[in-house]
């Protein structure tokens, strides 16, 4: 089976909505998130704000590196990438 980026959401989100673990063929972070939101559209508003930017108190790591572009979410994914979407402790 061909390797694909894997997206994992913080279990903290499960008290509000379902958090599917998604394998995506996307090559950018935003496209991968869109794939995940297709599984659960409500998840989008928990991760992105009105302007589709990453929420101020959400943080995303790609292969252990913090996501650099919180506006366009244009970070590149590799076939074996793992994306962790987490709560940032700045949010309390």
């Amino acid at each position: 089976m061909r390797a694909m980026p894997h997206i994992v959401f913080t279990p903290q989100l499960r008290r509000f909505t379902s958090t599917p673990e998604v394998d995506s063929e996307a090559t950018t972070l935003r496209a991968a998130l869109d794939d995940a939101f297709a599984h659960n559209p409500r998840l989008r508003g928990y991760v992105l704000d009105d302007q589709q930017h990453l929420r101020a108190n959400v943080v995303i790591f790609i292969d252990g590196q913090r996501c650099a572009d919180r506006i366009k979410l244009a970070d590149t994914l590799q076939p074996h990438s793992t994306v962790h979407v987490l709560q940032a402790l700045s949010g309390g």
Partner: protein
Amino acid sequence: MTRNDRAWVATRKGLFELRASAGAWRIERVNFLGEPVTMLLPPDEQGRMLAALNLGHFGVKLHASSDAGSSWQEVATPTFPEQPQDAAGPPWKLVLVWSLERVGNEVWAGTIPGGLFRSADFGQSWQLVDPLWQRAERLGWFGGGYDAPGIHSICPHPGQPGETLLGISCGGAWRTTDGGTQWQLSARGMRADFMPPEMAEDQNVQDPHRIQRCAAQPQVLWCQHHGGIWRSTDNAASWHELKAPLTSFGFAVAAHPQDGETAWFVPGIKDEKRVPVDGALVVNRTRDGGRSFETLRNGLPQKDCYDLIYRHGLDVAADGRTLMMGSTTGHVWASGDAGDTWGAVALNLPPIAAVRLG
């Protein structure tokens, strides 16, 4: 008619439902335990109600109940449209749902950063009231206690469909008479001592902490302002200042639903010292339209008290006698005799954002 034996307390860590029997209040239930609840809309006769959450990490969320709080379902969140590249002012991003009211057959939500939203399907969808959002004056608004301005008071006119008054910190009072298409500033007479003198009477920079309308005499409105207390007897065409005992500074006001001469206020020392005068919590009540006030203390802590009643922390039921207030320290007091005497209801709740009877 608003129930006088049920209350809702929105706190930093959940929504508490209180019930009264034989004059004694008790905590009946808590919903959303652990989550910040910023505002609620009490149940209607069918049991439909709304709660606004402000999740620390994941943003503002709205939940609806159709059984008076027994069960909840998440509904749509008011969402701003795509922000144009050249748009001035605060980011077009929802920060807080600061007010929820029934307006005709709709629900209106006032928000920080100053957007008004309306829903005709009880929260399943929301529409930004664009004519207000697009007003040039909006860019003159600024934050009052928050980085961005917000709509905290929504006062529909019970006798004139389509007419509603808003209170905005800091953006004055705005009135529509056609259901939200056209808006006019309606804060003439208010004064902003926090501005340069030449701007003090600018209606668009006023900071009405809270505005309440008398339901039975809707031409009467009360305003606890950053700079004092104001009242209107001409449906907000003009406002005149009142002077309360101890201090006229505070956040909350409750308007008697039938008697346009009666309202309650909870004073704090002043802007830069937001605690009760001399450590004694009091309520100032007028029953003659603000010509005189009584300072009510019976049953309230009169020593070493530092509680602040925030702008949505005081409410009165439709009977005009049942009052409840909750503080940012998490204390709740209630009165069954229009404020003459008070009793502690709960003394260990999380910080309280809003109290609503009904």
